[in-house]
């Protein structure tokens, strides 16, 4: 699986500066802060692309704006843009996003993952697979796939949450 990278020379972008959140003046210690776009982006930005030693943020596969979150309804939708139109790594990337969110968000959350419209040749087929819970569950019982996903997620566990 090593020969012939799908996209040998991806465009690498600068990482966005990480905002440090300022502590609010009145701190209610028991108030749970609603989860917002930035928090979700922080969970995902350092995921490593399956083929290249760059993060999904650096490759602009995901961005903060492509995250739609509605905390009061426990819903999030991630739209990601594969680097090339025929990227066969699209399902792996989608799976990485899903697994990371599964491990990071409260269990009440409903997650939709989709490819940015127009950015992939078989986007409907990929979207359908990524949002079929049963297919995702079966895929995650495949040790080779889980190993690949864990490798991509490894850089993200430095972020404290």
């Amino acid at each position, binding site marked *: 699986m090593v020969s012939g990278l799908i996209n040998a020379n991806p465009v690498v972008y600068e990482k966005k500066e990480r905002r440090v959140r300022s502590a609010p003046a009145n701190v209610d210690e028991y108030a749970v802060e609603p989860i917002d776009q930035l928090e979700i982006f922080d969970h995902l930005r350092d995921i490593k692309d399956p083929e290249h030693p760059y993060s999904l943020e650096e490759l602009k596969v995901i961005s903060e704006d492509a995250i739609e979150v509605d905390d009061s309804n426990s819903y999030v939708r991630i739209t990601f843009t594969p680097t090339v139109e025929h990227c066969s790594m699209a399902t792996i990337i989608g799976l990485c996003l899903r697994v990371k969110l599964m491990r990071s968000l409260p269990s*009440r959350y*409903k997650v939709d993952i989709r490819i940015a419209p127009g950015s992939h040749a078989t986007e409907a087929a990929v979207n*359908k697979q990524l949002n*079929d*819970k*049963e*297919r995702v*569950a*079966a895929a995650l*019982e495949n040790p080779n796939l889980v190993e690949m996903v864990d490798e991509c997620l490894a850089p993200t566990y430095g972020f404290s949450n």
Partner: protein
Amino acid sequence: MELDWELRELQTLEGHKDRVWSVAWNPATGVAGIPPMFASCSGDKTVRVWEQTPSSSSWDCKVGFLTSATAFMMFRFLRGEMWLSLHALWCVDDGNCCVHLRAVLDETHTRTVRSCAWSPSGKLLATASFDATTGIWENVGDDFECVSTLEGHENEVKSVSWNASGSLLATCGRDKSVWIWEVLPGKEFECASVLQGHTQDVKMVMWHPTMDILFSCSYDNSVKVWAEDGDDDWHCVQTLNEANNGHSSTVWALSFNGSGDKMVTCSDDLTMKIWGTDLKKMMSEDGYAPWKGLIVTGAADDAIRLFVESKDGSVDEPSYKMILRKEKAHDMDVNSVQWGPGETRLLASASDDGTIKIWELQPVA
């Protein structure tokens, strides 16, 4: 009199260590004094068998002379308001339903057990697993033993169903095929047919309640109907897809009404469709069973809903309306809902949250 219905939560069952995909009631229980029994299957690779304790308080009667067996018989023949008041008499409202764990079927499947089905006699339980096999289990004394393992599917088996007489078994899976197995004496199983036709992952198979006609539904958005031409030759006799008013996304499940002349399908396209056939009703509905004809659904929004055929609509076209929505029935997606056997009015629901809940359907005065 059109009754209104409520679902009363009786019990939450914990124990599975992963999401619960499916539940199936043993059809030979819940009648003639035999306590209702059901099986649940999970991502934890096991199946758990549960049973309602016969002497539990929710079946005791406040009116001393009625035992649970006679209470069943009286219940069947009551009408209207008298039925409601006797119900209040013999159901103790302590919320404790006393379903207990009878057995854990483990150390057999090596991956998720996706669904299970009891044979019509209640003696055998078939389990469909992502490990590409179908297990056949027998109740031996207090335990369950795996007496056979059906192999053949290339990958995940998703569903299993017995025909009405228990002579045939059907399975389906991600390899796009539907298998029909003959049940031979001595718990032997022989593959009778491998049906190709679906173009994608087949999610569920189910036999018609009275006829040897098999239905399957798939990730390819269609429902297929399979029948035999008398020469042991099974083939697809009908396909319900988008072209003939079918679904526009994965069809996850299907279910028949008691008389087998109506079928409901549910889909990722967020709709349910009711299908009818011209075949005359095969079974008469005996006794007064006002809750038959209710459709219950479990959904990915954590809710359980009840639908009933609506009498308001025109005479020619039936219509259905939602009469109950139980929000947050579980903490996560509801994967399966199943009505209890016989006249029990029980409902079991299974969820991603790892629990099973037992509910009771109650009329609202």
